[in-house]
């Protein structure tokens, strides 16, 4: 059924775990529309034939709606709409909730290309290579204007904004090559901002990782960037409180802000804090951080987020003394260490 519907309505074959659900709702909704239009057209045709003007009689009896009939129609239509809303909302929710164990890829959009950074440091332009059957999370930002990351075969789309991170996840279900479009008008070559998502089988993907792995992982690049921009003057990586919050175990944790609000320290929040630090300050810290907008480019910001993320399992008990500001070594995520200064 779904296969015929897709062919008839020109939908690309579904290639993600979202596709079947979305297309079924689509079929339900468009089918109801067509049926509704057909019924009302038939009714109109019947009325026109049945009540055509005869021999110049232009007086008609007053016919008024019966309240209950109208109410029933409204309630009936509205409950159909509400049903669609409920299904649509649940699907939308699942699109926005990242499952555990997703592969993370950082995406930087610019006029007019896509740049992808993998966690092992591999870089790709306009082609994104991912494995089949595993959820992939994209952390995306733009270097100039708004773009939009659109994969028709996966039924996903997300705007990519300058100065903040937006996220998108999907789970590819079939190996293959799929079109990537920019869907938000971004200037003269908007229609040339095309790309491709390459979905590989598990083994091929391992080979890709082995062949492409960069000299440095993204987290290492991020640590270099953090050093260059003197982030460690105020932030520690060993859980020690300093001028700013420590980066250790920060990623994904829930922090309380100075206004009492609680937020999850995700990629979007961390990026905002680099670009517009005064916007949401963690409770107990002075709003003294300068903005890094302009001095920190999008790929550096992405790398720093990857670095902070690599500290997810970092030390939680603060060490005794305040660290002197030196190059801190990267903490391997698997083996938490209590002291970074051997």
């Amino acid at each position, binding site marked *: 059924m779904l296969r015929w519907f897709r062919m008839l*309505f020109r939908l690309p074959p579904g290639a993600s775990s979202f596709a079947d659900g979305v297309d079924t709702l689509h079929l339900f*909704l468009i089918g109801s529309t067509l049926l509704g239009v057909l019924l009302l057209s038939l009714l*109109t045709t019947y009325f026109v034939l049945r009540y*055509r003007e005869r021999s110049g009689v232009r007086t008609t009896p007053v016919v008024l709606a019966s309240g209950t009939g109208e109410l029933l129609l409204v309630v009936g239509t509205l409950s159909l709409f509400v049903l669609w809303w409920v*299904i649509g909302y649940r699907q939308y929710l699942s699109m926005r909730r990242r499952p555990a164990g997703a592969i993370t890829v950082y995406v930087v959009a610019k006029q007019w290309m896509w740049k992808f950074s993998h966690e092992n440091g591999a870089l790709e332009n306009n082609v994104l290579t991912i494995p089949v059957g595993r959820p992939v999370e994209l952390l995306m930002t733009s270097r100039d204007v708004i773009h939009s990351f659109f994969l028709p075969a996966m039924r996903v789309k997300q705007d990519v904004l300058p100065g903040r991170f937006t996220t998108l996840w999907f789970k590819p279900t079939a190996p293959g090559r799929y079109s990537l479009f920019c869907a938000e*008008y971004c200037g003269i070559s908007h229609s040339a901002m095309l790309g491709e998502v390459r979905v590989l089988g598990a083994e091929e993907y391992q080979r890709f990782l082995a062949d492409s792995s960069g000299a440095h992982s993204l987290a290492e690049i991020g640590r270099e960037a953090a050093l260059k921009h003197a982030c460690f003057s105020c932030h520690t990586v060993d859980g020690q409180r300093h001028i700013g919050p420590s980066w250790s175990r920060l990623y994904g944790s829930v922090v309380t802000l100075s206004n009492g609000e609680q937020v999850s320290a995700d990629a979007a929040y961390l990026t905002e804090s680099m670009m517009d630090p005064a916007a949401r300050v963690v409770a107990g810290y002075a709003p003294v951080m300068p903005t890094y907008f302009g001095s920190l480019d999008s790929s550096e910001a992405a790398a720093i987020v990857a670095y902070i993320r690599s500290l997810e399992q970092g030390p939680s008990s603060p060490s005794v003394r305040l660290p002197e500001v030196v190059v801190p070594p990267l903490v391997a995520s698997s083996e938490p260490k209590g002291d970074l200064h051997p």
Partner: protein
Amino acid sequence: MTVASEPSFLPAAEPSFARAHTSIRSWLLSTDHKRIGVLYFFATTLSLALGGVFALLLRIEHLTPGPTVMSAMTYNRLFTLHGVTMVWLFMIPSIPATFGNFLLPIQIGASEVAFPRLNLLSFWIYVLGAAFVLLAMWLGALDTGWTFYTPYSVHSPSAVVPTLIGIFIVGWSTILTGVNFIVTVHTMRARGLGWMRLPLFTWAIYGTSIIQVLATPVLGLSLLIVSLDHAFAWGLFDPARGGDPVLYQHLFWFYSHPAVYIMILPAMGVVSEVISTFSHKNPYSYKAIVYSTLGIAFVGFLTWGHHMFVAGMSVFDAGAFGALSMLVAIFSAVKVFTWVSTLSKGSIVLATPLWYVFGFLILFMFGGMTGVAVATMSLDVHWHDTYFVVAHFHFVMVGGTLTAWLAALHYWFPKVTGRLYSERWGLLGFALVFSGFFGTFVPQFLLGNAGMPRRYYEYPERFQLLHVASTLGSWVLAAGLLLTVGYLGHALWFGRRASGNPWASRCFEWRTSSPPPEKNFSAQPELGLDAYDYTTPWPASEERA
């Protein structure tokens, strides 16, 4: 034949409004709402023609996947020109400023609008703004699209500031017209004409005016800030200066979503009138139509977020905006049910305006239901910014507003000109417009499904067949519109003289001669018999004149 007790209002032999004065000055500086309506008609129709030519050029460009007849820059400018011209210079003023101006005072038994000179000012502000917008876009090569999304528009080297100032000026004209109509309906109704007896077209224009007055200032504000961002680097919407580009989208759609109802509510008013007149029947539920008009005007302000489901808004916000959008759709559904039910037990005369209204019903149902579809969050993720959305809003705006505008044009043609056009040509014109429209936009739904993004100069080859089909459709649509210009132009000079009330309507505007005299009615009218009362035969004298 029994004669209704209603006295005849047809004046004996007063000159019509068009013949009362004949100098060019008497037209250009007239404060007569009917003449201003006619002026608006010519100005907005010129805009429609321009916007149409831009659209045809865009469609020709899409005949092949690569460059066909223009460069990428020209293409980007043309879709901006097309959008801005159609939205602000045609669609928004079309029905309210043309037919609203001409008919609203007559429909409430008044001799003029509340502020006749303000009305004239509003027209000339429109002309000034339109000239500004078109010149700026033509000479300054604006390429942002009609939505002016920041930060692209803040950094675009093209003529952003003059264009936005032009739209700002046009906005004043919209606001002045809106205020004028609101005050007119409140203060100038004929004695005994209560609110719940107003003609439905008047109600629709009244609801529209409220939206115009409330929403347009927000547009003016946001466009002004974009101009300041662009000219003086204020940075409110520019992340490079700490601004928020998504805030711009909120402000823009806070206006532009209600603006959709500015375009469709007057069209709905026309449909209510035409259905009632040509089935000689009271509306199935007058109250349902009035309350749904007000409901749309109110709830329409609370749904703007459904344009931003993929812009990075929170899941909760998206859910709330989605639910409110479903609510606003229910008001439109109520209207459709009421219109179709009005036909029942009527005495239906199939004439060109009614054909257009049937066309409207079908196209609007598709447009409305695909609106519900794109308001369904998970579906919108796939369709957002694709040709599906393009097809959806063209079904509402062209299939809805333009079709109703054509229905209004045919329905009130004898009222304004005192002449009749040929029904046969009318039917042919309708058939071409309707089939051309279907041919143009149904392929675009399918293109959107297939994943074709909008505002694409070039496209992958697999989309070509549907693009060519769409382009062919646009030619049929254009032929239908040209034919309409032809036979209506012909009828203007050579058409048969119409009687005062050629459709045997009971609505108030038909209780004076066609065309009406300068002051609308020869005596203070008493509109005792309801506008939709078809229970008694009409006085025979009314059918002459």
